């Protein structure tokens, strides 16, 4: 293997520190030129706005049943059809979206911040600290999750905060391992050594010099985490934590729709489509962000 030369000359590394604003500004300009990323942004914005304000303009509530109607395919009265209790699927998708987007984004942010900081510290300092931190991660991986969730509920009652704790507790682990691996590989590169020799503080080195260089995998893994979180929420609802009926979430709607997919396909297709659309948008946006923030590729 060739000895890897510094990714960017030391001087270039120092640049973003002084010109922080212009880096983000440039990134924003590059992002705006990326058609897929712009599409992703718009789609996410529209979905979010629809979920927030859609219910206000609808004639039905998420719990209004029409047992005589039962499950009906899309029609003029119910654009996306109704579920087996005759409830309007579109309204339930809006309400479910509020739950799923809130849980998906905030739990992912929690997992992201814990995982990135934890992984970066373990990777950067190495040694005994790394050993203790990573064996802790191994332990957390191994504990039986259903038991953990049920115990949480026993001690703290049903509580929406617990949902984030339970999801956060598992989702940050792999992120921490990925970040640690990247940091380990980058911290010995010449430009980091250069930053050290310039007497920069460790915190500054980690957050200003190392993390920006591992943003790519972080962004990709984040976009992988969000769907996992949304589906995990459905499993937690099964255990009694999370949304309780008649309220719903995308994960729960998809899980219920999957059981009825042959009889009432729209109950799976529409929740599945909006779920996929959201994830595609997030991925496009994520890829765009990654490209936009990549100082190196822009130099080609």
């Amino acid at each position, binding site marked *: 293997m060739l000895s890897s030369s510094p990714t960017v000359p030391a001087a270039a590394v120092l640049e973003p520190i002084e010109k922080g604003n212009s880096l983000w500004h440039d990134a924003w300009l590059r992002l705006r030129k990326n058609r897929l990323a712009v599409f992703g942004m718009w789609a996410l914005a529209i979905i979010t706005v629809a979920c927030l304000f859609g219910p206000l303009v609808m004639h039905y509530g998420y719990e209004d049943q029409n047992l005589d109607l039962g499950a009906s395919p899309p029609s003029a009265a119910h654009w996306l059809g109704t579920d087996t209790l005759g409830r309007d699927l579109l309204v339930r998708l809006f309400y479910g979206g509020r739950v799923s987007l809130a849980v998906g984004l905030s739990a992912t942010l929690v997992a992201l911040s814990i995982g990135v900081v934890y992984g970066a510290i373990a990777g950067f300092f190495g040694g005994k600290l790394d050993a203790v931190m990573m064996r802790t991660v191994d332990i957390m991986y191994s504990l039986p999750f259903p038991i953990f969730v049920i115990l949480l509920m026993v001690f703290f009652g049903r509580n929406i905060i617990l949902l984030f704790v339970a999801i956060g507790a598992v989702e940050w682990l792999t992120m921490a391992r990925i970040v640690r691996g990247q940091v380990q590989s980058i911290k010995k590169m010449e430009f980091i050594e250069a930053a050290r020799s310039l007497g920069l503080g460790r915190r500054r080195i980690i957050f200003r010099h190392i993390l920006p260089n591992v943003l790519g995998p972080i962004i990709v893994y984040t976009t992988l985490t969000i769907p996992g979180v949304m589906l995990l929420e459905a499993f937690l609802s099964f255990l009694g934590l999370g949304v*309780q009926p008649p309220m719903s979430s995308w994960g729960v709607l998809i899980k219920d729709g999957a*059981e009825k997919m*042959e009889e009432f396909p729209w109950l799976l297709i529409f929740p599945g489509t909006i779920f996929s659309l959201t994830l595609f948008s997030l991925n496009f946006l994520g890829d765009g962000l990654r490209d936009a923030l990549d100082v190196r590729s822009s130099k080609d």
Partner: protein
Amino acid sequence: MIAPRPAGSPGLRSRRARRTRGLRGFLFLVLGLSILAGCTRRETAVAAGNRLQILHQGIGAEPEDLDPHLTQFNPHFNIAMALGEGLVGYDPHDLHPVPGVAERWEFSPDGLVLTLHLRASARWSNGDPVTADDFVFSARRILSPALGSPYRYYYDDVRGAKEFSASAASDFSTVGIRALDARTLRLELTHPTSYILFLLGNWSWYPVHRATIEKYGHFDQPYSGWTKPGRFVGNGPFTLADWQPGQVIVVKKNALYWDAARVRLAEIDFHFIENADTEERAFRSGQLHLTELVPGSKLSTYAAQPSSPLVIAPFFSTYSYAFNISHPPFNDVRVRRAFSLAVDRARVVASQPASGIQPAFSFVPPGTGYVYDGDARLRFDPAAARRLLAAAGYPDGRGFPPVELSTNTNLRHQEIAEVVQQMWAQNLGVRVTIANKEGKVFYDDRLGGRFQLTRSGWVGDYIDPFAFLTVYLTGGGQNEPRYASAEYDRLALAAARTLDEPTRLARYRDAETVLLRDLPIMPLFYDTKPHLVNPAVHGRFPNLLDFHPYQDIWLEP
């Protein structure tokens, strides 16, 4: 698989092309082999089974054990019935007791002594004769506290049985079960019991083979491993041939069974499939003759088919919500009545199309010759419900404390809870929260009285109204609301001990009137037990307890 043509350098292209070709070749090889091995529309398991008289049946979760004294779940009774036989059997149509190991029997005039005469031809699968001593041994075993059988209450009407099983020290000779000779068994009862013969057909009364049990452990040692393939000895129409953990139990026809000439099936494969959707797909692809469950969403589809495999029999089961009657607000009978009056049971039933469930206006399901027709019959009357709730201090639901309805997580339970929740909101102005709970948390809370309102279901053990009314006797193990009424106890027990049919039924009605007035539970509907049955299966008839003796079943496309 898409194999995109990359536009790389020429060298790369050819090398990558070779690599992808290799990969593609490998994938095709794997696919081809598997198609050769598995596909080409080979004969399905069901078709082969029809030819060879092999019945493929789904039975839900894997059984813990095949010991009939420790069998716990209804589906596993199917296996017990194939491997063993009691003193009496059941008629496949209406389950009336028919001769089993006993060829005849007689009661004493006061109904307190039952003498059974065993047939000489009854054999264990190892050739030993089945004797009256085997039944005495079996009774002593199941009643032993150390065995911990959950079904010893099937012996409760036998004199001394309860006392014996309550303490390890007592002497079995105090129990009213005696072998007068090798082929005569005498039972002494504490009181006349109209349904005692029915109980004798249950798996808890099956004999177990003493020599085998004592070979592998102490006679009252649970789970000693005597039921493993190669060890198991039974007296049923089939013997245990194989048990593949997580997959299947195979039983084969027992040539030594006294009525072997009547048995037409050569083999039964009991497949463990826990998930109803998986089981339904296995049925549809020709892997199963018979399913244990039918997914709720598939009921309408199957019901609409001509010559549908869907079989829905009324099931001796009532689906209810139980109240916590020790704490406010449900310690007030007016609140309980208001909650019951506010539920339109016909519409609850309509929310489960094609399931065959029937609205319940009383607790005991129909089918026993007894239907409650007293004046405490439940009804739907929202106006009366509101008046009662107002009288209890909550006009239009104002000031009603927050209330939680517990169910174990399951799509059907949840849908029903949502429908009822909506009715309470509309008709009473009361907002009830639904709490999904994980199975064991749910049962633990329910049995421990940690609930306000909870789902509650009951399946009768034998065909008599008392199989239901016994639940709410004071101190009963399954009496989740902790209902205690001396009047109810007196009426229900008096009824059960009456042999004369019309008098007994009239007394049951008086007892049920008390129950429905006090309303510790609100019955919602009488449940059903749908199955998918391949049309090749003959001799299997819908009945109230879903018992299907295999002696009468055969396969013919």
